[in-house]
């Protein structure tokens, strides 16, 4: 498989107040292959959104490289290259309410990117918008409505159509379903899956819902305080999680099997997630890890390949 996005040592620090930096993403590396879905999970506040937005250069990276289609987007690139990147890499947001401009009609929203990247007449654009609306499960009738007339699920579909309008190859899906009703979530996920098959899309699928991530992803990365702690293909990760943090996350999933629920060992996460402004030394997870000892405070664990394609960052493993 061909890599589409290679993230190497990505850093995004926010300046918060005088002389304080918040390391939202710190030295993050992973690769997304063409046509796959890479899931990204982790507790709220661990830097998933920041990671997704920095990859798309919506946030200026503090360091590292983002190699997209062989070109490092974090170095100076000619304008045509930047515009190509903008056309090729898109994003779907978590909050379908703030993601659409309340003063634009659905047609204006969806066609915003078309006018940037393609030369189309008005009627051609209207035709494309109409097709897209049907594709995502709405009707052409929606074109003249305003966002507030739509339900959350419908808005999310419009957000998807806006991203699709420029014919992207890669889409960052930042918790696209977590703000929706459970009954709508599966519909949106299935829409994303069928669009992926049809258009050979590559997804970075961010979520804190492990079961949904398992459902949609080929490979899954687990994030903790701005770093990846484990990365493996979806089956392997769920069958044999290696990192204590992944194990703890897994045991928080409720299953629908009461017998299994009785016998399985639960591993609760102790305490709160530490502040990214002042993270623990060495392994950042050590303050909540049941296996931590003195050595964990000394060295920062590297992401190592423990079995083919299965990476984890724990010195104990």
């Amino acid at each position, binding site marked *: 498989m061909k890599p589409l996005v290679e993230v190497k040592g990505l850093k995004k620090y926010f300046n918060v107040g005088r002389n304080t930096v918040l390391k939202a993403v710190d030295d993050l590396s992973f690769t997304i292959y063409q046509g796959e879905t890479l899931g990204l999970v982790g507790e709220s506040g661990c830097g998933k959104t920041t990671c997704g*937005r920095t990859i*798309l250069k*919506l946030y200026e990276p503090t360091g590292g490289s983002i190699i997209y289609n062989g070109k490092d987007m974090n170095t100076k690139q000619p304008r045509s290259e*930047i*515009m190509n990147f*903008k*056309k090729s*890499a*898109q*994003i779907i*947001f*978590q*909050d379908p309410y*703030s*993601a*659409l*401009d*309340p*003063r*634009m*009609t659905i*047609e204006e*929203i969806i066609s*915003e*990117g078309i006018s*940037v*990247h393609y030369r189309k007449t008005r009627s051609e654009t209207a035709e494309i918008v109409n097709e897209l609306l*049907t594709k995502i*499960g*709405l*009707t*052409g*009738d*929606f*074109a*003249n*409505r*305003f966002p*507030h*007339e739509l339900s959350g699920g419908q808005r999310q579909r419009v*957000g998807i159509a*806006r991203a699709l309008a*420029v014919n992207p190859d890669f889409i960052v899906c930042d918790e696209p379903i977590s703000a929706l009703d459970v009954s709508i979530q*599966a*519909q949106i*996920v*299935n*829409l994303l899956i*069928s669009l992926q098959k049809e258009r050979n899309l590559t997804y970075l699928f961010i979520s804190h819902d492990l*079961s*949904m991530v*398992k*459902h949609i992803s080929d490979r899954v990365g687990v994030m903790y305080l701005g770093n990846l702690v484990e990365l493996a293909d979806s089956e392997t990760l769920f069958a044999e999680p290696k990192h204590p943090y992944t194990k703890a996350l897994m045991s928080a*999933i409720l*299953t*629908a*099997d009461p017998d299994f629920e009785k016998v399985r060992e639960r591993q609760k996460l102790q305490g709160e997630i530490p502040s990214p402004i002042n993270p623990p030394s060495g392994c950042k997870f050590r303050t909540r890890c049941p296996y931590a000892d003195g050595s964990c405070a000394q060295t920062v664990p590297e992401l190592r390949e423990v079995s083919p394609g299965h990476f984890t960052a724990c010195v104990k493993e």
Partner: protein
Amino acid sequence: MMKSDIPKEKFEIIGADESQQELIGRARVSYMKDAWRRLKENKTAMAALVVLCFLILMCIIGPMISGHSFEEINPAHRNQPPSSEHWFGTDRLGRDLFTRVWTGGRVSIIIGVSAALIAAVVGILYGGICAYFGGMVDVIMMRILEIFASVPSLIYVVIFSIVLGNANLTTILVALCVAAWVGPARLVRGQMLQIRNQEFVLAAQALGVSSFKIILKHMVPNTLSVVIVAITFAVPGFIFTEAFLSFIGLGVQPPNTSWGALVAMAQSEFMFFPYQMFFPAIMIALTMLSFTLFGDGLRDALDPRLRK
């Protein structure tokens, strides 16, 4: 069984009903056209607009149709009640009140509208710069603004009127605007900061829309509607402040006049000739009420969430 094990078929998109696709939707409308349509449907706002137009029209043509000049003193016709000769009566110098009310209205309305516009323009620039540059620029500029805001605006107005001396249109406007931009500046800054962090702006950036177009298409329309409404609501406030200034003798000086000055003049005769106060007072009240009601309707019209 986990949530992910629910059979996929159960959640297939059934797609749109083919028969509905030919259905002709609502006619294509732009945001401003849609707002205008909603404004037209609002009876109160339209009535207020009609009253305002009438008042403005009368201010323009009123002094011409009365057959009297606003300065013309006629000792023989002092303190006359309304008649066919003097429609609103005359004051204690025998000047025609109909002419004077509409001449004064020119001053009042011009001051009210220009002060609101000047305050809004300064406020948009100041607030826009704060929001755009952020950081230290924002901090310093907001501190300066707070210093201005901490003194009651009437004190500025009175001090400036006294310092600038012989009051005319310009000095009154300057006095009114010294502190008036503070409100719009805060409003614009807050609105801009809020919009800048909305995800639709990020989406536009991800699509490669230029900064200029983002400002033009997202920031300005979302800020402007708030500002337009604020201007409409500010006008009656300025008209009233001007009336107050004239009332205490710091406003327009005779023989020029304004509604406030007319009320002040009528005050001494109020016991015997109440109609002298009635006409300018009712004009002040009508104008203020109309602007407020119209502003109300405008706010509703510009907010698409209220669209039916």
